[in-house]
């Protein structure tokens, strides 16, 4: 029996369709269908000037919009050869890690409610609010920040912001302990997660899975560590990975990443130099190509921009991590029960905005 889980279904965070073929309750085949949210951002970008694309890049992902606008700015800086002031890079790292925390907390909330646990949802959303408030006082918006600029960031840190950020880090760390209690202390949570949705290392590499699912399958590769962008090379943190490759490993990798993010924020705020936070960006890009790669909360985000000398990009290609990860979903789903679909797909942290572009 083919069942359409989607496009309107509580399991799909966003608008997509997962067709599963079930035998009783066991899944024998699965086929994801995406494209319901295709807005043609790549085509729109070809008709906008370089600065105008930054708010559009924000709209790629509602969960972690800052990463995408930062990735866009990074790519265009690579194309134009703009030097970013050091303070701006540190501010970017702080905000990026905050965005990662907020995104992971939102994932945790969605994951908890996928598993039927209202408590996790509401606690995570409550704590995400702290980070969102901080980012709002910095950038002026709660969800689509429009904060990075080509050649820096839009605003300097408000007074006392760094102290508030450190306090938020402490708060999040105490809360993370509570989450570990709440989830791993619950036997049912472990029953639902351990040995569910196994993705072997070979499959993960072959299918192009990136980010936390890849690290949970035993590949220790983090763009921030192995190919550092911004000022990540100066900061001390660990790459979180686990060898199991099941849902619990993915959950655990994300929780560990949140701990590491708190660590990074502390270091970056302590080392933040004084100075300018923005430079004047050129209006026109040279003829050539630019490439940007970041470690999005969901995986490897990439942009490839082709400039033709005018003030508009000739071509902007966006690599969405979820678009590739969801294509690997059938290999994780087959053989498990129907109730595991929500655990497995929830563990991938779907974000349809960036998947469909």
């Amino acid at each position, binding site marked *: 029996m083919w069942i359409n889980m989607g496009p309107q279904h509580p399991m799909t965070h966003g608008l997509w369709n997962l067709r599963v073929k079930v035998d009783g309750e066991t899944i024998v085949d699965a086929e994801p269908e995406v494209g319901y949210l295709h807005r043609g951002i790549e085509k729109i970008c070809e008709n906008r000037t370089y600065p105008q694309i930054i708010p559009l890049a924000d709209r790629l992902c509602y969960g972690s919009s800052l990463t995408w606008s930062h990735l866009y700015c990074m790519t265009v800086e690579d194309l134009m050869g703009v030097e970013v002031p050091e303070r701006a890079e540190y501010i970017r790292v702080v905000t990026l890690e905050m965005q990662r925390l907020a995104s992971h907390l939102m994932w945790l909330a969605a994951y908890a409610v996928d598993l039927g646990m209202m408590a996790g949802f509401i606690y995570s959303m409550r704590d995400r609010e702290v980070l969102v408030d901080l980012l709002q006082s910095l950038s002026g918006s709660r969800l689509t920040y*429009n904060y990075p600029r080509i050649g820096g960031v839009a605003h300097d840190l408000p007074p006392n912001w760094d102290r508030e950020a450190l306090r938020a880090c402490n708060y999040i760390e105490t809360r993370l302990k509570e989450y570990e209690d709440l989830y791993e202390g619950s036997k049912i949570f472990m029953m639902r997660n351990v040995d569910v949705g196994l993705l072997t290392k070979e499959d993960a590499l072959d299918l192009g899975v990136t980010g936390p699912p890849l690290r949970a399958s035993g590949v220790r590769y983090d763009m921030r560590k192995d190919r550092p962008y911004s000022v990540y090379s100066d900061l001390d943190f660990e790459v979180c990975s686990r060898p199991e490759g099941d849902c619990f490993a993915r959950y655990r990798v994300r929780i560990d990443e949140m701990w590491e993010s708190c660590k990074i924020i502390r270091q970056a705020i302590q080392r933040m130099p004084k100075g300018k936070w923005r430079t004047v960006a050129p209006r026109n890009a040279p003829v050539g190509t630019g490439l940007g790669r970041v470690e999005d909360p969901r995986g490897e985000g990439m942009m490839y921009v082709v400039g033709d000398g005018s003030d508009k990009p000739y071509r902007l290609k966006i690599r969405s991590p979820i678009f590739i990860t969801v294509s690997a979903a059938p290999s994780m789903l087959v053989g498990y029960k129907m109730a595991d679909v929500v655990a497995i797909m929830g563990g991938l942290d779907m974000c349809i905005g960036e998947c469909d572009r």
Partner: protein
Amino acid sequence: MRTGRQFVRSLILGRPNTVLYPHEKLVLPQVYRGKHTLDFKKCIGCGNCLNICPNECMWLEKIEDPELGKIERPGVDLGRCLFCGFCAEVCPTVALHLTTEFELADRERESFVLSPKDIRDDAFASTFKEERQSRKLPYLDLSKCTSCEKCAEECPEMCIAMMPIEKVDKKKPEINLAKCTSCEKCITACPENALVSTEVYESYFETPEPRLLLSKCTGCSACARACPTDAIYMMEMPGSEKTLKDGKKGKPKKRAVFVFEKCVGCGRCFKACKFGAIEMPGVKK
């Protein structure tokens, strides 16, 4: 269970984290991007906000103001607005701001279309702490300048250079704004009061600069009328007089001269020129 312990603690010690919305509201930061306000007195009607807007939700409207006369000011369609804040960021005279007003819901689409008068708030800018830094710079009024070179001699930073104007038998002082320290010595030195101290805000956007094709310029002065910052001056070119039928010499031809320090890169001269004599790289008509 550990879960239960946390629940009991939350039950006894926790305070509600939600905000009872219509009665309580969140405190919004100053940088919050809500509804627009426009300071009519500061706005020069250059239209840079129109050019940067990603959604083309702004337009310039010709209005008659009892105080300011015939002016052009931007209006905004909030129904299309992205609230990216680029218009406020690019405004050369910081006349446009985004307020913290966020309750903009309405029943009809038409009510989102705000004309310049709807967003006018001349007092708002005084309550707003501007993040962009300003400095005082000497601006040149070319019609008064006599090319006496006194300003260039006075400048301690040697940042004023007297550049000859092509086909016009004059020189104009060009000020290197990056080196200027706002000492205002040139202003006091000027015998004709041609240099005016003006407050200028820094801008992070590289703006396109107009270029004049002298062979095509007819001296119609349409660009000078269109320029919102009065950066274009029409100057006579000696030696270009036509000989009239009666043997007298007529009026000499005029050409446009740009004072680039004043230019905000809005491209209105480029649009106003009917003869294609002004070109702006990267701007479409």
